[in-house]
């Protein structure tokens, strides 16, 4: 038997006044019905006899009072919500994991899966015996952990406070947090083990199971119970991809690509609407097979800037994935610095109108590499791309770089001995840097095979080895060409290759300016996943920016050191506006979209894989607390009936 307090202290004070009031009313002069009798002679003699009677006679006279007090007592007990513990709750310590990822916003359960999960978690808390401790962990891709407590009121408050998110699901962190308390030996120092014994706990996972298996996790003292939330076969149509790009056939036009997946068991037809800044641009009807995907290209005119939105005209269980955004930012000319001792081909290729349209190219001589002013600018990120032609800075700048015939400093990049490159034998035609670059007939005299650092991508292979590679560096990228374009021979500059005679050379430089110069990403910003952090690059002189989220909340960001701005509060799906400096000026925008097939797939999983264990779903676990208050109310009613009967038939008792 356990009790749950349902009233505040002042309500108890009011209630406890009721029995006192009843007793007082009894002790106050009872209003008796006057009755004239021939003589009270016999009655008064009878009463005199009774006056000297035992206390039981008094009790019997006050039988009604006691019955009423009993009635009130029973009602008070009923208000304490006495209950019997059911059999399902076995652990002295409970860890309740509540999934609040995007899929838990599905409305196949009323009002939503998350609310249902919270309701069931509350039922679990209600079942707790006094002395049981519980911990609430809300998890999506990260976990919000509360401490163990026996305070059920606090637990209820913590459960109530769990809000839905748009994030993806990763139970790993939540499991590790739970394990940290159940298996302290794994996370604590040896010295702590003596103090803090590992305590077995029951792990209740309230989720739809839409997360990847956790293979490298040992449950040890945790006993997992998977309580699935949601309807088993819930179909859902979701936008799993939405991207915009220049039409390769017509570079002055944009195209938008949308992919719609059907996670239901029935084929579906849906109308997809494309909007620009809220105005409808195009409509298309898509048929999606059960469990399949289908895509569509929208052709768009060349747009300066705007927010593209694609909407599925359909009401299904999950609304989050029926809408997606893409941002076309106002193109900004890339700032490109070319450090060269003199390279006519390079200069000419960078002087094409196409390059001039997207970039602002400055050519300087190598001695500037030691100039303090230049070093400060390079460190502050004043340039988007710095091209080093046969030269090497002392330190890599805060900018994307393209090294032509030289290696970046630092030793991460290595190269083999100089040899005869002769011809390029393989090209990466997918990478934006080498798209549409055909080097089939390019002849190259000498060069060095590159040994790029780990994580890099080789874009171009020669007979000797990698001739062009690109590697990421703290959010920036370094591209290195393994052979120089020109070489100095006897004081004269002579070509080292025939590439500059080919059309592919200006195309390559145009690609480099667009891709490394950032004008590519400026045109169409990649979509960010909810909860991920977004890196915002701005010129070094901008010290602070403000970000306005889709709900209109404004958050200022301050630059720390020379690093780019990082915005992490991407909880809401939609378009975020970044404002740098001048008021009311939207400088940049980025979109946050779900694009997570795992979250959009609302099919209920029948089991979870945790470590090497398979945790089967516990079907429809009802609240196990057996409420006893009804019996108390029933008893109170019976007492009330008895009281009424005795009041009427008191003569016979």
């Amino acid at each position, binding site marked *: 038997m356990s009790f749950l307090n349902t009233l505040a202290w002042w309500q108890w004070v009011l209630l406890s006044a009721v029995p006192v009031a009843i007793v007082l009313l009894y002790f106050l002069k009872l209003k008796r019905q*006057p009755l004239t009798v021939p003589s009270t002679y016999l009655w008064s003699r009878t009463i005199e006899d009774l006056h000297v009677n035992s206390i039981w006679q008094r009790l019997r006279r006050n039988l009604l009072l006691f019955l009423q007090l009993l009635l009130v007592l029973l009602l008070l007990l009923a208000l304490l919500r006495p209950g019997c513990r059911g059999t399902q709750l076995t652990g002295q310590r409970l860890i309740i994991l509540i999934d609040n990822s995007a899929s838990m916003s599905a409305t196949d359960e009323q009002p939503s899966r998350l609310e249902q999960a919270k309701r069931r978690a509350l039922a679990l808390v209600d079942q707790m015996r006094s002395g049981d401790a519980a911990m609430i962990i809300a998890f999506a891709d990260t976990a919000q952990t509360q401490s163990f407590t026996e305070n059920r009121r606090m637990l209820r408050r913590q459960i109530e406070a769990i809000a839905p998110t748009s994030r993806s699901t990763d139970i790993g962190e939540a499991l590790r947090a739970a394990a940290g308390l159940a298996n302290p030996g794994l996370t604590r120092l040896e010295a702590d083990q003596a103090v803090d014994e590992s305590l077995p706990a029951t792990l209740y996972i309230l989720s739809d199971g839409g997360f990847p298996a956790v293979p490298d996790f040992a449950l040890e003292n945790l006993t997992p119970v998977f309580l699935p939330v949601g309807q088993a076969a819930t179909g859902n149509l979701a936008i799993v991809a939405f991207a915009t790009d220049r039409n390769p056939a017509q570079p002055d036009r944009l195209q938008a690509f949308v992919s719609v997946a059907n996670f239901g068991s029935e084929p579906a037809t849906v109308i997809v609407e494309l909007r620009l800044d809220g105005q409808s641009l195009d409509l298309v009807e898509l048929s999606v097979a059960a469990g399949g995907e289908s895509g569509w290209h929208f052709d768009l005119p060349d747009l300066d800037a705007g927010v593209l939105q694609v909407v599925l005209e359909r009401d299904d269980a999950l609304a989050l994935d029926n809408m997606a955004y893409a941002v076309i930012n106002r193109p900004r000319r890339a700032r490109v610095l070319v450090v060269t001792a003199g390279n006519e081909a390079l200069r000419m290729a960078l002087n094409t109108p196409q390059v001039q349209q997207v970039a602002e190219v400055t050519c300087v001589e190598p001695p500037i590499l030691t100039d303090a002013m230049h070093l400060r600018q390079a460190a502050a990120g004043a340039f988007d791309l710095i091209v080093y032609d046969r030269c090497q800075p002392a330190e890599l700048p805060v900018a994307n770089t393209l090294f032509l015939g030289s290696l970046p400093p630092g030793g991460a990049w290595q190269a083999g001995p100089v040899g005869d490159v002769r011809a390029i034998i393989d090209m990466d035609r997918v990478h934006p840097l080498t798209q549409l670059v055909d080097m089939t007939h390019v002849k190259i005299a000498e060069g060095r095979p590159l040994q790029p650092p780990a994580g890099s991508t080789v874009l171009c292979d020669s007979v000797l080895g990698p001739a062009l590679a690109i590697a990421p560096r703290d959010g920036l990228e370094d591209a290195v060409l393994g052979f120089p374009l020109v070489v100095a021979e006897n004081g004269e500059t002579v070509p080292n290759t025939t590439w500059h005679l080919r059309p592919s050379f200006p195309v390559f430089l145009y690609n480099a300016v667009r891709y490394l110069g950032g004008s590519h990403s400026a045109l169409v910003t990649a979509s960010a996943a909810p909860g991920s952090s977004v890196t915002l690059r701005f010129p070094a002189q901008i010290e602070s920016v403000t970000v306005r989220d889709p709900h209109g909340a404004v958050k200022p960001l301050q630059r720390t050191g020379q690093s780019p701005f990082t915005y992490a509060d991407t909880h809401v799906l939609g378009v975020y506006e970044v404002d740098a400096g001048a008021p009311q000026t939207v400088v940049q925008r980025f979109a946050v979209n779900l694009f997570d097939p795992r979250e959009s797939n609302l099919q209920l999983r029948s089991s979870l894989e945790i470590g090497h264990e398979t945790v089967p779903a516990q079907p429809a676990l009802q609240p196990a607390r057996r409420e006893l208050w009804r019996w108390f109310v029933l008893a109170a009613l019976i007492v009330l009936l008895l009281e009424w009967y005795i009041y009427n038939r008191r003569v016979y008792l």
Partner: protein
Amino acid sequence: MLRAMPDSRNQPELLSPELLARLERLELVTRKIFRGRLKGERRSRRQGQSVEFADFRNYVPGDDLRFMDWNLYARLDKLFLKLFREEEDLHFFVLLDASTSMDFGDPTKLHYAKQLAAALGFIGLVRADRVQLETLGGSRRARAPVLRGRRSLRQMLECLADMQPGANVPLAESLRHFALRNSGKGILVLLTDLLDKRGYEQALRVLLAQRMDVYVIHILSPEELEPDLKGDLRLVDCEDGEVTDITVSRPLLDRYQKTLAAFVAGARDFCTRRGMVYMLVSTAVPVEDVVTRYLRQRGLVR
């Protein structure tokens, strides 16, 4: 239960013709020898002039020659006197308690007492006894008429009808007063509920000295014998307004029954020891039954 005080005018007739017919055959009996004032229909222990022969005795000079048995003298030549039973009248008093407490019940105890008084009085009238009906306490102002003979029936009934409740005089005082005024011997029937807080013992003792043949008829209503009460009540005494708070319960009612039984037994004991006849009568019992059966058993009527 509300106060049951029906209008006395609506009460049924005191004596029904059938009852009168049955009563005509009855007569009042006294266990004691009384000297009547007038010659009545009653045979007396005293020898006197009547038609009923009693005995002979020797003539002594001075005897009335009219009672000489001349036939015996002729046969035996001795003078014998014939003795005859004297027939004489009887003093029959009926005292009614007309206190307010008698005005309860349906029919009221007072009405019941009147019926009893009328029945007994009628018997007395028919037998030419000297019947006197009085209320306790009420007799102070106007003496009740002495009734005799069948013709006085109407007068007796009127007298009874005039009796109204409300004469709350202590029992002892009114009986003492009665005793002072009526020194003669006879039958006294006291119709009362004995509910006097000062007790009845002192009052009844007064009657002992009168050497009267006393019948105490204790009249109680069913409401008093088997009270049907419920709940928390404030009982108000109708005579002195005394208040008693009771909460009716089974034990209380049991206790009341015990008290009542003790009260009745006490009164019966008191009367029996002192040569009085005590009889408890409930107003639920019809008057004719009381007169023709119970009082016959007790020897008041024959």
